[in-house]
Every structure is written in C-alpha cells, then in structure tokens.
C-alpha cells in the first residue's frame, strides 16, 4: 500500500471519528433535554467547535504521520545498511512524500464527488424544511452530509489509486 493510500485512510478515520464524536455529543445533549427546541445558537456553536476540532485534528495527524513516516524510513534504511548516508535517507523521505500530478487529479475527481454529496444534502435539507422539519434538522442534515461527503471522498480516492485514473 502506497504512502498516499495510507494517508487517505488516516484522514478518513479522522473524519469518521470527528463525525462520531459530534453525533454522540450533540444528540446526547438533545436526549438529555439540555437543548431547547429552536436553540440555533447551540447548533451553530457545536458545529463550529467540531469544525475546528476537525481542522486541528487533520493538521496534527498530518504532522504526526509525516514524523512517523520519516522515522520509519530512517530506521529501516539504517537497519538495511548502517553506513546509509543521511542525505540518502532525506532523499528517500522526500520521494515518499512527493505529491504529483496523479495525486492532484485523483484529489480533484474525489473532491467533486464529496462536494456533490454535500450538495445533495443541502437540497435534501431544504426539502425537509418544506416538509415542516425544524431548522435544527436542516443544519444537521447539511453538516452531516458534508462530513459524510468528505469520508466518501476518501473512498473514491482509494478506488482511483487502485483502479487507475484517466484525464477525460
């Protein structure tokens, strides 16, 4: 499995964990009766906090992943050959982390799927409001559909890494 695939899986797991944490916290509060009906401030605050957690977690995990990968490569090279030069190790690390045109194309195509799913969620949320559901339901449907969209985006990336990708 390539570095890019591993990174995608790590990001998908992070996204899923943040979404699960949001659902447990937010709906837990609702079930406990701590949220008044129509309290949009609660939902806005909760969503903003979890968006922040998601962004922070993504950055931290990317950094930790890069460090672990670098250490892993350095250790394996040193085990192979004690006299392996540091410059060579650095070169191997850079080669592993390189993001090229194929990665960008895959990211672009996967991103399109993710955004489309988010768009469907937005339309579904509007329809739910028309059917008489509350604004809180609308906000949750939008938030969850974009979150699920980003996880699906990861699956699409993995699919393209395995199957290959065409420009057209």
């Amino acid at each position: 499995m390539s570095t890019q695939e591993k990174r995608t899986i790590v990001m998908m797991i992070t996204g899923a964990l943040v979404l699960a944490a949001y659902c447990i916290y937010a709906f837990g509060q609702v079930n406990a009766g701590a949220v008044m009906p129509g309290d949009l401030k609660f939902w806005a605050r909760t969503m903003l906090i979890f968006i922040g957690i998601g962004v922070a977690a993504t950055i931290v995990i990317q950094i930790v992943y890069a460090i672990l990968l670098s250490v892993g490569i350095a250790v394996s090279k040193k085990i192979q050959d004690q006299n392996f030069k540091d410059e060579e190790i650095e070169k191997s690390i850079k080669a592993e982390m390189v993001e090229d045109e194929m990665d960008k194309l895959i990211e672009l195509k996967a991103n399109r799927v993710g955004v489309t799913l988010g768009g469907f969620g937005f339309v579904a949320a509007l329809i739910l409001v028309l059917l008489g559901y509350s604004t809180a339901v609308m906000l949750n449907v939008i938030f969850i559909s974009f979150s699920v969209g980003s996880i699906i985006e990861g699956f699409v990336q993995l699919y393209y890494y395995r199957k290959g990708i065409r420009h057209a």
Partner: protein
Amino acid sequence: MPKKIEITNNIRRLRFFANEMTQQELAEKAGVSRQTIIAVEAGKYSPSLELAFRIADAFGVAIGEVFDYTVVGETKK
C-alpha cells in the same frame, strides 16, 4: 465523433535496457512518486505531456519511443 485511442508504453522494456532501472529511480528522475510510475507503466494512468517528456528524458530517448497509441478496434499499420 473522434475514435477512442489507447495509450501504450514501453517503460518496462526501457527500464530493462537502462541497467534494470528501478521504478523508484525512474520516479526520482521524473520527479513523481513511485505509485505514479507504477500506474503509468501498468497503463492505469496517462501522464501529462510534461511528465511524458520527463520520463522520456530520464531514458534519454524521444517521447515516441516511450509512448505509443492504438486506435481501439483497429490495428496499427
């Protein structure tokens, strides 16, 4: 409607004649990841013209020696 073409490549053969150059070495010379070279070699990814030139340059040959095409449903003369 334009005919569908399939891009083929001789990267495996060229690597063999370049002292069995590894995919990693080729990736480093072309400035892409090994994953991308694997995909190009297996015909799973058609590279941009720029990358195609860089791959050809890595072998020191013309681009036509690395990449070729066949029109789907036809055999080339």
